[in-house]
């Protein structure tokens, strides 16, 4: 039960780490002609994480599946620019920076959750104190 919770946060961390990579590539290529900005779709990743792969048997509609979260380039989507440029570059630095900041915050949030779980487990193992 507890370990299951750990693996959920692990999947979230993996997703955030990969999105961090994608967004940083966007910002790195802000001045590259013809570069198309990309992003990961959280909903698709969530569906993938809960819908496919080996799953535990669910005996109630309220059970959440424990599929393996596999993040691949197939989940990358091209961003639709609001202000396209003549050189074919679709990176909008402000949008990317906002997304990057949000993603970093979410990564920290997942870390905090994971840290809390680990502390709880350790507390239980030591029998309090």
């Amino acid at each position, binding site marked *: 039960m507890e370990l299951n919770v750990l693996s959920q946060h692990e999947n979230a961390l993996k997703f955030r780490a990969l999105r961090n990579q994608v967004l940083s590539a966007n*910002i790195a290529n802000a*001045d590259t002609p013809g570069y198309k900005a990309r992003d990961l779709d959280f909903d698709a990743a969530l569906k993938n994480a809960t819908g496919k792969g080996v799953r535990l048997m669910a005996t109630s509609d309220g059970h959440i599946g424990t599929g393996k979260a596999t993040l691949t380039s197939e989940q990358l989507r091209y961003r639709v620019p609001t202000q396209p440029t003549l050189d074919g570059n679709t990176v909008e630095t402000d949008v990317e*920076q906002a997304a990057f900041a949000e993603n*970093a915050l979410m990564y*920290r949030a997942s870390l905090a959750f994971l840290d809390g779980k680990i502390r709880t487990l350790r507390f239980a193992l030591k029998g309090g104190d």
Partner: protein
Amino acid sequence: MSLFKVFDTAGSAMNAQSVRMNVTSSNLANAGSVSGDPSRVYRAKQPVFSSFQDALNSQAGATGVRLDGIVESSAPLSTRFQPDHPEADENGNVYVSNVNAIEEMVNMISASRSYKNNIEIINTTKDLLTQTLSLGR
């Protein structure tokens, strides 16, 4: 661990931007240079960027910046009639480099901003990695 690749990506971008900065400073330094021979006049140079994915970084999204080369501007040179100039040709003309100082200043600001952006990316990612390492302590 995809967070580590951020350093490569942002690093390649910083490298490209620093080359751009270098080229800009070279252009500005030679902005007013003249010569009597049109083929020897300094011409504005511009770096050409492209994005790349190497075999190791073929995993989703790890796209760095590569410097494809440096091209010389084909903008026309302006001529100035100055027969007393030691470099003047037989008609008394000297040729002035085609550097546009305004364009270069804009280039410089853009390059420095992009460079700073990438530094921020590296700092944030470094923070995230450090926090991950201290997980559960």
